[in-house]
């Protein structure tokens, strides 16, 4: 492993939500990663960070910079997702009014994370938590 970054994200903290993704984006720019990959990681990371703040009891987002690929892990300690297939559908959302007034809660985040990554894996258990792992190729 060459480099790792990790940020905690708290539930309901919309003041600081987005900071982790912005720092990740800056780091990738400093490392000279290509722009297309930076955009994909930024969008997928930000969707994941917002999901932590909106839906989870709190968790973290981490970026590993490896030879030829980037790995983004977004993990929380609950409440978990009862039906992953349903949650992965475009348009499915359990977000409340406060979140919708902020411009989120369209049910697009998880599918967008899958679309922006080269490999996407989600595991979740109600009462335990959710873990999403995404891989992005950086070899050109």
């Amino acid at each position, binding site marked *: 492993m060459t480099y790792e970054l990790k940020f905690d994200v708290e539930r309901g903290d919309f003041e600081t939500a987005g900071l982790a993704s912005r720092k990740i984006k800056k780091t990738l720019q400093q490392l000279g990663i290509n722009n297309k990959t930076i955009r994909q990681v*930024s969008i997928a990371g930000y969707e994941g960070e917002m999901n932590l703040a909106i839906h989870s009891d709190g968790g973290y987002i981490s970026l590993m910079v490896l030879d030829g690929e980037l790995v983004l892990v977004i993990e929380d300690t609950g409440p978990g997702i009862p039906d992953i297939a349903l949650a992965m559908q475009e348009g499915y959302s359990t977000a409340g009014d406060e979140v919708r007034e902020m*411009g989120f809660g369209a049910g697009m985040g998880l599918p967008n994370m899958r679309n922006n990554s080269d490999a996407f894996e989600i595991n979740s258990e109600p009462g335990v938590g959710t873990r999403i792992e995404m891989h992005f190729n950086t070899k050109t």
Partner: protein
Amino acid sequence: MKLREIQELLDAVVLAGENHLNDEVLCGFGSDLMSDVLCYANDDAILLTGLTNRQVLNTAEMANMRCVIFVRNKKPSDELIRMAVEMDMLIMSTRLILFECCGILYQHGLAGANKR
């Protein structure tokens, strides 16, 4: 289209990032739904929105957008303006409604930032 031309066409007030007025943009996206901006918007676009919370600027930054224009005379807080300064992002405010902004800019050749 230069951002300065957009500012003039919309009679918009610049709130931060004036140094970017000579930058060029290719397309625009108008929405109050940041979820959709993150899914559908192209690079090097401008964002027109009636929302003024922090996540609007984060969304624009993550989607490589060059400028945020607040429509319907919405004025962001001083805190948001400071955030834009820190991010080096051009933000402006216009009295026009979203429909008018999009119509004017489209008529002058700015394309829709539609990725799909």
